[in-house]
């Protein structure tokens, strides 16, 4: 029974060997939010960005090509699905995998942007995210080596996970794009297409929320 006094009561659990996907009040709320945002990015049209010509009073609205929209939309939905996976999964390693997937889809969402600044920022962010796989997988490896399992269900409340592993996990998710290292990501949200760009920010916030829960629980 998964009944931590951190995140509310258990609502649902799917016993699947020792890897148990579960919903607590907390993760269920997050999952509901992810579904809402997937729906928004799946069905909404992108906005038309207004650009002001500085020093004059002219402004023009940019149009996005249909093919670019389609690609970004697909990637935004993929990003939503990866986020959903990261929120719902009951396994530390799967969480790290989903975190890396979120990183991939994040740079893919803006890949079709013609803006060179955006692409440059995406590239630099991608490199940071790639380096972040080291602490992410490293923490999963340390957890596996010290406790012999990766299941959050089993680890919950045991306090068996070393502090180093927790710190590395947070560091890894930070690299995938939360607060202090987020600055690298701030530039890529200049890209066009509000529903899709929104997904970039949303996915990293949810990763952050989920990793907070994991670190407090295990």
């Amino acid at each position, binding site marked *: 029974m998964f009944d931590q006094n951190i995140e509310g009561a258990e609502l649902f659990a799917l016993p699947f060997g020792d890897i148990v996907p579960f919903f607590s009040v907390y993760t269920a709320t997050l999952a509901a939010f992810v579904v809402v945002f997937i729906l928004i990015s799946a069905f909404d049209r992108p906005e038309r960005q207004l650009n002001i010509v500085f020093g004059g009073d002219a402004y023009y609205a940019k149009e996005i090509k249909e093919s670019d929209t389609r690609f970004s939309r697909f990637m935004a939905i993929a990003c939503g699905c990866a986020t959903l996976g990261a929120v719902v999964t009951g396994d530390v390693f799967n969480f790290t995998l989903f975190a890396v997937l979120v990183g991939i889809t994040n740079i893919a969402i803006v890949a079709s942007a013609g803006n060179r600044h955006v692409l440059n920022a995406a590239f630099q962010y991608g490199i940071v995210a790639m380096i972040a796989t080291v602490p992410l997988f*490293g923490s999963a490896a340390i957890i596996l080596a010290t406790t012999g399992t990766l299941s959050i269900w089993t680890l919950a409340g045991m306090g068996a996970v070393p502090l180093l592993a927790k710190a590395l996990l947070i560091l890894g998710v930070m690299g995938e794009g939360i607060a202090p290292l987020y600055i690298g990501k701030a530039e890529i949200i200049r890209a066009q297409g509000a529903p899709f760009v929104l997904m970039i920010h949303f996915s990293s916030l949810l990763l952050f929320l989920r990793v907070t829960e994991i670190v407090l629980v295990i």
Partner: protein
Amino acid sequence: MIDTFHTGMIAASLCIIIAFFSFLKETDDLHRLLLTDLASVMALFLIALVGTDLAEALILPGLVVTISKLMALAEIYLVKEGLQKNSPSRILDIEVLQSAPAILASILVIYGIILSGFSGGAVAGLGVIFYLVCKGHQERFELIETVSGYAWVAWIAAFFIILIFPSQWFLAVMIAGGAILIKVTAKLSLIGTMRGESDV
């Protein structure tokens, strides 16, 4: 198991520190892109250190996501630097195909000569095809046809030798083997040169 883990861990941390240091020093985007692969390998190395069945099962998905991320980054790099626009004049305009063919083709040809006969010809022919595909493809049919014709003649001559002077069978077999080798090689290499040039 834990002891080995710790020893490996120290080695891995050393590698990670070196990798991260290289990130600090490196400023060229392409080189940093290549170094990210080093970092991801280190991540997999950490998992592999655990050395259980479960860890083994975790390496493959880890490899898949890191490689796909590397590919996505490489694609971004291409778009960012505008490298997609200058499309290569030839399809196989890859750097490794400029340097490798000479070595690989010579290895294949030498091995084919050692094998001799039909199969040797096939191997050597493959080497020649590889070389021609990578290096260039002027359709010099005359040359190949000439070589092929002389090989044919040598093969026939070997038959005559074995019929007229049975005591010299070894020489005859050698000539026939060499000839068939050259013939098959020549025939196969035709494939490498046939690329539909304008003046043919």
